[in-house]
């Protein structure tokens, strides 16, 4: 097993983790500020990917598509918040789970009605095609760009929350919902903005990942479940926790799938080892989540003290 291979897998893990972070950031913000579990977050990821693929195909320009994906997901998020989500803040978690589960059905089927049952394929923009030499190994330029993009968005999000007025309101909302009312903030408006912001991040992740995978109905749900794992590990409501959790999940999942079959191969014959290794690898992050919940029930970086 060469260093180059380990490095490349590590990069794959980081890239995966950063895309998970984009998904998780919105989810954790919405829970932190509004106390809402949003299962339909994966649908916003899907909407971003579909809009990006459709517009990129129509105009031939990936970046226009990306803008459309982000803007469209944000708009869809704002609309959903105003029409449905707003009525759920005061409800218990069971109602939130069910209502947003219903939203998944509605949005998935709606997208299928509009775009049809076939996957769409989105091309990597020309300037990011091909691979680059990193010295030890070659690596896909686009995946490298995704890593850069993820880091940039994380920094931007940090600046937004640490330095801007909106950020102050968001932090206030996380620590004390009554306080933001006292600050004279229009809470309804703030909630809509936070929800749309989370939706925009999810849409961005969907569009970016769509270019290397396929854009299809149902693409959001596996990512959604992983994003939940991320925020539970990181501590619900904490952006920092989402970042650490996302990188942990991304790297552990990738390395687990890569290493566990090899480790199992030391004890078992090849075909058995592949089975056992794959079985363990796919359970690994859920095991991690269960362990975190058992030993640190509030997650690694609890948002509220």
């Amino acid at each position, binding site marked *: 097993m060469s260093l180059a291979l380990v490095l490349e897998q590590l990069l794959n893990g980081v890239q995966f983790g950063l895309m998970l972070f984009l998904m998780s950031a919105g989810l954790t913000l919405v829970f932190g500020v509004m106390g809402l579990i949003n299962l339909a977050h994966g649908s916003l990821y899907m909407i971003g990917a579909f809009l990006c693929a459709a517009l990129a195909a129509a105009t031939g320009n990936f970046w226009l598509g990306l803008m459309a994906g982000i803007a469209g997901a944000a708009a869809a998020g704002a609309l959903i918040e105003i029409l449905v989500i707003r009525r759920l803040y005061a409800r218990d978690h069971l109602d939130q789970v069910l209502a947003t589960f219903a939203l998944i059905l509605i949005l998935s089927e709606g997208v299928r009605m509009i775009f049809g*049952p076939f996957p769409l394929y989105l091309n990597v923009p020309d300037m990011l095609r091909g691979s680059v030499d990193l010295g030890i190994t070659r690596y896909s330029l686009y995946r490298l760009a995704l890593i850069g993009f993820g880091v940039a968005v994380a920094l931007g999000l940090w600046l937004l929350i640490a330095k801007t007025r909106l950020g102050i309101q968001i932090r206030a909302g996380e620590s004390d919902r009554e306080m933001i009312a006292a600050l004279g903030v229009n809470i309804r408006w703030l909630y809509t903005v936070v929800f749309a912001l989370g939706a925009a991040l999810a849409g961005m992740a969907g569009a970016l990942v769509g270019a290397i995978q396929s854009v*299809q*109905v149902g693409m959001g749900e596996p990512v959604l479940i992983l994003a939940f794992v991320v925020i539970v590990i990181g501590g619900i409501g904490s952006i920092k926790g989402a970042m650490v959790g996302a990188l942990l999940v991304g790297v552990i999942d*990738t390395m687990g799938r890569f290493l566990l079959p090899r480790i199992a191969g030391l004890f078992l014959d090849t075909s058995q080892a592949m089975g056992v290794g*794959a079985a363990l690898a796919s359970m690994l992050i859920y095991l991690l989540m269960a362990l975190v919940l058992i030993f640190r029930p509030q997650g690694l970086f609890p948002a509220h003290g």
Partner: protein
Amino acid sequence: MKLKMTAIAALAASSIGAAQASEVTVGMITTLSGGGAGLGVDVRDGFQLALDMAGEHNIKLVVEDDAQRPELAVQIAERMIQSERADILTGIIWSNLAMAVVPSTVAQDIFYLSPNAGPSALAGANCHPNYFNVAWQNDMLHEGAGAYANELGYENTFIMAPNYPAGTDALAGFKRYYEGNLAGELFTQVGQTDYAAEIAQIRASGADSIFIFLPGGMGISFMRQYEQSGVDLPIVSAAFTFSQDILPAVGEAALGVFNASQWSPDLDNDANAAFVAAFQGAYGRLPSLYASQGFDTANLILSATAKADVQDRDAFREALREADFTSVRGDFAWAPNQHPIQRVYIREVVEVDGVITNRIVGVAFDEHRDVHGENCPM
């Protein structure tokens, strides 16, 4: 999800009453949504085209989408048998779905004609008089790829397939004829969309070539990521990963890939020329091998309905065994396990008039039959 397409033959069929009075209900369970939809749509369209070209017939076709989910396919099969009273089931693309549906279907004295999946278990010990495979046994085309890899001089091939019956069959089939070393062997998840980890392992393996079996959306995702990865090894494969449903989405990255197939759009026989032209006329795209298999399946059923009443299962079975139809792949004959004996061609992906498609460049086997038939008691 439920695409119901009931194609009842020209009004005439029932009233004029061809030789065989009773209507034949064919239930088609196939994949019409998600990453595998391209295959199912082609099987359906090929099948429908054959019915349309036949003009008068007494076949009632009911189509449902299985979304590539075994548990859904099982439910649909149950409904088609109990509620639609289907006489024949067909359409399943994926071997894992076939394994879930076929054994209980044929046990209920319903015919199953496979237009695509050919898992080894159903060709061998679990073969059944009511089960006919019109396409191939899974291993066949991969065996062709393995034989051709030797011819190409590959000595250190990295092989990869999804972890389901057709995937294991594919790797077994390739290895049965390939004589070089294996640089590595990987199973991926069915429906997987990100292949970064696999590409990393290919890069590190020191292979001189790659053999892949990734049908449908899996092949598209892999090829697009492979193109971006900077790994540039030659690929040899079976037709599935480079069939006409995939090529437009993969684009130039596929050019020059050799793949084994029992059929190709440029195959030179009258039936095929008519089929390709009619398919293009009807649907505005080139047919894939899945379309050719759907087409052949329908024509096989049509040939049998002309000879026997489907309610007389034994007579109808005999009629199917006679295989009195013109296959677009040329000569068609059954092995005793009711799987085809056929020629396996090697095709190359080329660009013709701006369309990326396949062209025959050689023959891997002439009268090829699958190895599992030996275990079939029939």
